[in-house]
């Protein structure tokens, strides 16, 4: 597919930089795309990482998801039924429904 082509076509840009290895970013990439889509109906579509040693810069296109987030925020309450249903489908998330926002992004928050 070509890294450069994907970065250009998907409009990926550096959004955050920190000390994280490639392996963890590989998990994060899956979380921000497939897992987010499966459990929440939205996704970044594509993600990237530019790294050296254990330092990395995450590549995202924030514009791609902002509309979905706006619609969600204006249409949902954090305690709403839809979110609770989502979390019931995810055994690893026994806590508050907002975990579906948080879990895919764990490494970027530490």
């Amino acid at each position: 597919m070509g890294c450069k082509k994907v970065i250009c076509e998907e409009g990926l840009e550096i959004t955050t930089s920190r000390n994280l290895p490639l392996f963890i970013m590989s998990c994060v990439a899956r979380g921000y795309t497939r897992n987010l889509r499966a459990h929440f109906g939205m996704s970044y579509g594509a993600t990237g990482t530019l790294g050296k040693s254990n330092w990395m810069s995450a590549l995202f296109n924030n514009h791609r998801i902002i509309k979905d987030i706006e619609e969600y925020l204006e249409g949902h309450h954090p305690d709403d039924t839809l979110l609770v249903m989502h979390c019931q489908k995810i055994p690893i998330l026994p806590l508050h429904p907002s975990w579906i926002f948080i879990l895919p992004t764990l490494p970027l928050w530490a």
Partner: protein
Amino acid sequence: MMNNLMRYLGDEEEKGILTKETVHVLMGERDKVAKFYPQIEKTIFDCTDIIGQLLGFEGDLMRYMSLPEMDIFLKEKKLGEAQLKILEERKEGYVMVYLEEGDQEIIQTGSIVAEIREMLQPSISTTELKGTCAFPGRAKGRVHNLLTDRNWHPPKGAIIVTTMTNPDDTPIIKNASALITEEGGILSHAAVLSRELMIPCIMSTKYATQMLKTGDIIEVDAEKGIIKKV
């Protein structure tokens, strides 16, 4: 995700009221995550080091595997010479892209990585940066870039520039005249600290640590969220 939320909120009070509860819940959960995530990362590092020792290679190299590669490696329990070479090369620089459909590509060829790195860097000729205000005020002074110069303490009145603050930075920030971070929202550590210490603070600047070097003289306008090189 939080950055998107902050961009959505902007300065609009109506949106702030609408999302107040969501933000509150998210931040609460985020605090819980911040407590246990470091332990997960430590466990991964410890495990890879031990596996490396057992199989006779540098454990650090396992951290340059992608998730599918790790899966295969853990099943086969061996690494070939060619794979080891690739992992060594990734240590020097790599680019990874991942598509929702599951396609993934990792490049470790030095020249291509350098080309992409160059393509993604912001223009260094820019003399002005914008961000979100966490605590209002104005300041002028010399930059101390914590990312590149963490090992020595800045003089009193320096303007601290960093990706994100953590509690260890508090003694340094106490003596600063302003604080600039690349990330963070209104409830981040930097925002809370700047309000506590009443230091002008601008967050979410994205490229501050790349554009502002230690010793640069800058003006910080945390009323408008603008940083200018003098």
